[in-house]
């Protein structure tokens, strides 16, 4: 056999280099190289056992090969599409690690074929964990690209939903899908995003979060400029608004762009609740974000410089609580803020079962004890705890982290120049956010540039009958969602 093979290689130099390729692959212990010498046609079969589904080999490949008379029968008989004829050794090196099975017939001049038999291990579709909602669908993306595309497509069963696949990463060979609805999504947006994806030059893409950071408009900004979500329903409705989505294989998060500041602090539940309730919760959430950033800096500013600001009744309370504190307000505040950050980080790193103790240690022991020991005032303790609570209301995890770090520069500015310092820090923040863009579209829209039409879905989420147009922000090709009914008809009483 081998001799015959080597004889052949004199006629065909490719065959010997294929043999060399196989020798290289054999260095991995999970590589199977099996020669069947008896039977109708002798054959060689090889694959990576760890990534190949053995069931496919046994049910769909081997039975047909045993019955085969000629090589060319193979493509007709084996019930698997996408069988590839090997033309060069590169094919082998590329396809075998992806879960292909290589079959080769030593007696024929054919170089063999590659049959896909990929093992597809995945968890089942589970309820969303990060963006949980009480009402609404309980499905979230999983780590398989095909399942994720299915989850979106079943919500948008139309021919216009385009799915374009791109593979990125020299090492990770990550497959990604760009989703948009033709005739609705802006072509310029699609081209921008495609260009950015094509320009990615990174060896191993770990998750969709890598992509979102790499294609961000301004990588020096602390703000996430692409929205990530684990909810297929949110992705589908975003697509219907004319946005684009990226699904990345092996990642349970979709990326949505272009996005805005308002979108980062809204949840999908805002659309599931009655619009009064939804708007109320949204306003509470916005206020709590401002509160969580500003409250400790304001405490530091007033207690360091502007005692005059505090009304005299409140002043008594404050002075009693701060009378024994030896530290200046800034150190007191930094100490407590860092403690909260520590608790949060420790809680996130520890396994759930051990993590429960963190709440007790942090909340009761450190909090109460530091007040009793006279390290911090209990007024500040309440403020910091409230600020921490408020910061947990940010619905997107990535954005919540940004809010977490923003208060520290504010604290330092408050210490330096009191209230003026806080306004100074706020100006820097405002100037930064004014310049931010998401896929080239302004991040602070619809506040600046002011677009009155898009204000319908900001502080107040108007009822659906008012949302008859897609957001201008996405520059959709088709601007109208539905024609608003003629509202002129006002019926009189009992008519």
């Amino acid at each position: 056999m081998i001799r015959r093979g080597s004889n052949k290689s004199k006629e065909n130099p490719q065959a010997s280099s294929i043999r060399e390729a196989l020798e290289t692959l054999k260095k991995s212990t999970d590589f199977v190289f099996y020669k069947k010498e008896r039977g109708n046609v002798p054959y060689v079969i090889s694959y990576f056992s760890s990534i190949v589904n053995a069931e496919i080999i046994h049910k769909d490949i081997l039975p047909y090969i045993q019955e085969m008379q000629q090589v060319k029968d193979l493509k007709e008989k084996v019930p698997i599409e996408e069988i590839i004829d090997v033309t060069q050794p590169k094919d082998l090196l590329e396809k075998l690690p992806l879960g292909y099975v290589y079959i080769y017939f030593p007696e024929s001049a054919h170089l063999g074929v590659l049959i896909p038999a990929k093992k597809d291990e995945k968890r089942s579709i589970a309820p969303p964990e990060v963006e949980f909602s009480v009402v609404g669908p309980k499905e979230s993306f999983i780590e398989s690209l095909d399942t994720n595309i299915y989850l979106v497509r079943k919500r948008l069963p139309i021919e216009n939903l385009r799915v374009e696949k791109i593979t990125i990463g020299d090492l990770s060979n990550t497959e990604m899908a760009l989703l948009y609805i033709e005739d609705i999504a802006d072509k310029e947006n699609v081209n921008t995003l495609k260009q950015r994806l094509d320009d990615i030059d990174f060896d191993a893409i770990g998750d969709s979060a890598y992509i979102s950071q790499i294609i961000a408009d301004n990588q020096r900004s602390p703000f996430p400029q692409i929205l990530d979500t684990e909810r297929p329903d949110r992705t589908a409705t975003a697509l219907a608004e004319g946005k684009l989505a990226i699904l990345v294989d092996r990642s349970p998060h979709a990326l949505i762009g272009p996005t805005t500041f308002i979108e980062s602090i809204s949840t999908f539940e805002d659309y599931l609740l009655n619009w009064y309730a939804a708007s109320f919760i949204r306003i509470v959430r916005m206020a709590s974000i401002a509160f969580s950033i500003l409250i400790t800096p304001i405490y530091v500013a007033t207690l360091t410089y502007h005692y005059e600001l505090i009304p005299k009744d409140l002043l008594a309370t404050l002075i009693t609580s701060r009378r024994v504190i030896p530290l200046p307000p800034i150190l007191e505040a930094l100490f407590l803020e860092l403690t909260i950050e520590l608790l949060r980080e420790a809680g996130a790193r520890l396994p759930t079962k051990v993590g429960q103790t963190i709440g007790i240690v942090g909340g009761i022991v450190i909090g109460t004890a530091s007040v009793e020991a006279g390290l911090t005032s209990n007024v500040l303790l309440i403020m910091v705890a409230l600020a921490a609570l408020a910061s947990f209301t940010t619905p997107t995890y990535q954005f919540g982290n940004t809010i977490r770090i923003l208060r520290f520069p504010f604290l330092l500015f408050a210490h330096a120049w009191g209230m003026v310092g806080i306004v100074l820090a706020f100006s820097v923040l405002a100037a930064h956010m004014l310049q931010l863009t998401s896929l080239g579209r302004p991040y602070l829209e619809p506040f600046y540039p002011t677009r009155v039409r898009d204000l319908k879905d900001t502080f107040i989420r108007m009822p659906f009958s008012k949302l008859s147009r897609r957001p201008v922000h996405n520059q959709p090709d088709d601007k109208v969602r539905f024609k608003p009914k003629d509202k002129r008809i006002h019926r009189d009483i009992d008519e």
Partner: protein
Amino acid sequence: MTRIPERLKVSPFFAFYLVQAIQIGVGILGFQRLLTKAAGNDAWISILFAGIGVHVIIWMTYKILDKQEGDITDVHKILFGKWIGAALSLLLIMYLSLLSITILRTYIEVVQVWIFPGIRISLFSASILIIVFYVVNGGLRTVTGMAVLGVILPAYLLFSLFYPLKYSFFENLLPIFDHSILEILQSTKQVTLSILGFETLLFYYPFLKEARKSQKWAHLGSASTIFVYLAVMVVSTAYFSEEQLMRNIWATLTMLKIVELPFVERVEYVAISSWLFVILPNICLAIWAASRGLKRILNKKQRPMVVLLLIFVCVVSCTLRTREQVDMLNNYTAQIGFFLIYGYIPFLFLFSTVYYRIKGRKST
């Protein structure tokens, strides 16, 4: 005339904010004293006069610029030739730098007097100017964004005007026209410093989409400025006695002292702090306009020009130490600004009208 790419332009509607934001600045914190000195209880009439004046000047400015569809450097170049034109533009740029120094230094003065007597002027002005650089670096669109914020965010302070009403005595306004027209006109001259800044329109005009349509917005912006000044003037005339107003340097701020809220005593502290939002776009717009002008006449990149201007502003603002110097600076700026808007712009308007009439006759 260089074409400005569409993506760098702002909607005509923003002319409202751009005009209003730069007109309301530090002036409003204490403009009442000089007005009252000249016209007593009739000071509010002089604000109306100034309002009419500003509208005429804005109309003239648009008439000058509409013919060119370019900025003032283009106008100067065409009307006066390359060298004289450049010199005139340079004077305008120097005036804008002076304006930003005045705004910055007066604000620091307010902070010094009211909140931090010992603040380090150099460090504080440097921090503000770094923010200014960051904003101007983002181009006119970011500057406009700051202007929008500078109009909307501190707007809550208008509500504070309701508190003094309880202690007001509107008979103070009577008798109306107690002063001669000359006195009222003198007082009108004193309003000038408060409404300066809209001349930056001469520079950002080509950055407005469909610039001609922006005229009504510019007028509206200026009208709302006049309205705010009028309201503050009427309330303070009713709240203070004439004697008090003549002696009070920061009458508006003093008026804020009466505001009582359950959780904040001294609202003027909050007001002065948030006033930074108001003066920031002023400085940004002035510096942007000045650097844009330098770019046009020197054919250099704009960014180094911004840095140069900011360093200049910072150095000058640090050298002014005393209250008298700041007062003098304010007076000079008011004088030059008065000459500019009531002297130079009408002259330019007449000159360009005559120039184009003669040119039109020649071509036909």
